[in-house]
């Protein structure tokens, strides 16, 4: 079986530049989106990948072809694009970013009215249009429009929500690593306006990512070093499109993306609003503990930002996110936003008067392992019922793959929609237990 590097799916279109991701396909996908949206203005933002320019022109021509107006927002973090779309009441937006994927990849992510991603059934409708190629092409295309400073809207929205005086009083020393990505033009000034002293590393747009864009501990050596040597209070790592955040404590140790989310949510619940909490099925149990401590209800959704934000809207949750560092605060917008995450953590730091490493130690300590195993699509589906059978005395949830909960551990096994791989997450109180469970799961493969 040949697996294509081009992925056309309900999450958008993704591929390797110079291989599957051609201007013609990008154009066609944009035509399908403009036809689906039915006209109006479609904002376009990108991250800092060198291929963004080629992709952008293809997207513009596709949007124009089907009677919509492209609004060029230049390099822009994806949460800023989502907020812009919502605040300006635009019909839709396209983000040109392959997010945490390596630099040779690029992708289109589709945002609808209200600044959220397409619901799966909407995305399926779009794909149907795309494959049929029946587009609403017009004979009088409109013109490309430009907006020079679209980030301002995002910043203003956050500043309405943030306790800026609290942060300014603390004058925290911060090191931030935007990974040469979409946050580069904005993040230093943003933090300075909050009253922080800022050192920015990996802060040039060079055409290559200075590190693997995923904010995992093993990718953050430079940032950790900088935090240690500069004596900063905290370090922040963003990914290439600036939706995910991982924090570093003052000793230069990454606290992990799961704990980053947990501290932000904990602070929100104790100092902002009591609200239900929504996270995805793969997120650490520490979030459940945090919610219980504040006495609020707790929900889990399928993996994926749109699934979390949709559930948040359904249950009226103001706070939530994904364990990979995607913090969502609905007061700003129901999207993963590293900028909002930084504000919450800086407020926490100022309010608590504690060191960041101490704050992390206050959280319940779990051990987690995330693994990716190659498996055929068909085999990936079969494995789920086998696992449910094997762990039938646990609490079983088939919402998204299979998740099994026991009092002292849980695991989540989920076949990817786009690649022939199985994602396995195991979390337990004791480290030894993790490997035992992982071994048991792998026996079924």
């Amino acid at each position, binding site marked *: 079986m040949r697996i294509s590097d081009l992925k056309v799916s309900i999450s958008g279109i993704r591929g390797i*530049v110079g291989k599957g991701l051609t201007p013609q396909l990008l154009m066609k996908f944009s035509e399908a989106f403009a036809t689906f949206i039915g006209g109006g203005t479609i904002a376009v933002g990108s991250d800092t990948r060198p291929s963004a320019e080629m992709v952008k022109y293809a997207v513009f021509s596709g949007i124009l072809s089907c009677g919509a107006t492209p609004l060029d927002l230049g390099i822009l973090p994806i949460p800023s694009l989502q907020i812009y779309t919502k605040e300006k009441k635009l019909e839709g937006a396209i983000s040109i970013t392959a997010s945490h994927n390596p630099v040779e990849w690029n992708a289109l992510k589709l945002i609808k009215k209200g600044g959220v991603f397409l619901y799966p059934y909407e995305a399926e409708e779009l794909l149907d249009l795309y494959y049929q190629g029946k587009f609403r092409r017009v004979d009088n295309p409109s013109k490309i429009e430009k907006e020079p400073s679209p980030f301002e809207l995002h910043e203003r929205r956050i500043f309405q929500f943030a306790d800026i005086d609290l942060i300014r009083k603390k004058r925290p020393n911060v090191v931030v690593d935007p990974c040469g990505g979409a946050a580069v033009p904005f993040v230093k000034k943003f933090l300075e306006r909050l009253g922080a002293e800022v050192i920015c590393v990996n802060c040039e747009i060079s055409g290559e990512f200075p590190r693997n864009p995923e904010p995992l501990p093993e990718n953050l050596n430079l940032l950790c070093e900088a935090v240690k040597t500069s004596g900063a209070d905290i370090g922040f790592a963003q990914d290439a499109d600036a939706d995910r955040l991982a924090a570093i404590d003052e000793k230069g140790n990454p606290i992990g993306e799961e704990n980053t989310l947990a501290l932000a949510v904990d602070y929100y619940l104790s100092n902002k609003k009591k609200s239900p909490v929504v996270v995805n099925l793969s997120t650490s149990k520490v979030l459940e503990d945090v919610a219980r401590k504040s006495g609020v209800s707790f929900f889990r959704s399928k993996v994926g930002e749109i699934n979390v934000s949709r559930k948040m809207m359904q249950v009226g949750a103001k706070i939530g996110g994904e364990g990979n560092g995607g913090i969502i605060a609905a007061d700003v917008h129901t999207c993963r936003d590293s900028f909002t995450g930084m504000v919450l953590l800086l407020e926490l730091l100022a309010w608590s008067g504690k060191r960041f490493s101490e704050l992390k130690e206050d959280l319940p300590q779990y051990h987690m392992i995330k693994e990716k195993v190659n498996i055929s699509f068909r085999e990936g589906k079969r494995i789920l019922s086998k696992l449910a059978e094997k762990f039938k005395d646990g609490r079983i949830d088939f919402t998204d793959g299979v998740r099994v909960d026991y009092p002292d551990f849980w695991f989540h096994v989920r076949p990817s929609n786009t690649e022939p791989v199985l994602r396995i997450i195991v979390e337990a109180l004791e480290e030894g237990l993790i490997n035992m469970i992982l071994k048991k799961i792998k026996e079924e493969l």
Partner: protein
Amino acid sequence: MNDRVRITVSGIRGKVPQSLNVDIASKFASAFASYLDEGRVAGCRDSRFSSHMLEMAVCSSVLAAGLDYIDFGLIPTPFLQFLMKREPFSGGISISGGHNPLPWNAVVLLNEEGAYLEPFEGSEVFNIYESGDFKKASWKNLGAAAERAFPVELYLKEMSKWVNIQRIRESNFKVVGDLCNGAISPFMGIFGEFFNCKLVTINDDLEKPFPHPPEPSIENAAQVEAVVKATDADIGFLINSDSSRISFVSEKGKGLSEELTLPLCLLSLQGKISKVMTTVSTSSWADWAARRIGVNVYKTKVGQSAVIHMMGAEDAEVGGEGSGSVAFSPFSLGYDALLSLAFVLDLMSKEGKSISEIMAPFPEYYMEKCKIEVPPEMTYKIMDKLEKVYAKERPDFTDGIRVERKGLWFNIRPSTTEFILRLILEGETDLLVKCAKAEIIERIEE
């Protein structure tokens, strides 16, 4: 049927969006960039609503093949051709429907010297298009796009080398121009100042649609005629949307046939040229003017590609067609309306005569140009039939069929840009022309 896209060396032409759309434009740009293989591509567009959209598609495809794209924005195609003769580019792409009416548009491909592609170049590109085997650069080797302003001062300076600039300036001409809301609009004022003309322009707004079919001809000249009379101007002109074709209006406010543009330019170039290339369907006025200034005339197929490349092959400095198109190879390898205007102003200042006085010695010819709509699949059957019908008159087959009789000639050929047969007849009397036309149409309909 008329919605089929036309794919020839004079461009990929079609109605937007039925036959020409971003998908086809981008595939042709990918094929062209794959053919060019490396270097940078110069690009421009006209003022049609669909042109920017098509340019974006083209730009993305050029970058994806690893070539740079230098965007000169909204400028006339001849400007780009002028620059490409002087600066190294691998090729050029102009998004411009030229004389085609809306909703038509075209992707016009230019070779490294700024000339339309020759048939062998065109077929290489079309073969790549057909195979779909486009060059794909990796993310590291993608091309870059850059915007550049067209150096209009250089253009005028080079132009002034071929005319007596001092004499034109001193003549202080009063000129009226209809710019068809085309790409030349923002530049016309600079031209007027440079030649010290008192310039009145109409239809000079890029934001507006074409005021009339974008072909310079007597039928479209009414507005200019009226303004010339009202302002007591020395000359009027009409330019097509991409500024490759021009026709004139006399100081009396009388529209002149676009067939007169080439002969007027020839008279202006007396002593500076030795050969002229024209086509089998251009007026005998061109032959008359060439004889008058003592240069040889060569005739080739209709269309910018054929004329420009035969100019090169025969060392002809001037080439042109009865559509109001003139090229001058020391200046650029493309038809250029502003250059023609400069030549005609030069002629007026040299002779010290009004345009009507200059026209006075021209012999009287009567010409008719007809478009005969035929279904595309019938085109060649009809041509085949006519070939047999006129065989005994020993026709010329350079392009379609050209028959010469005493006091009359006619040429009939399928259009390269539209689905029509073009019939052109010219004779010494109106009656000769009318009779011949009736006869030919009867033969077609038989």
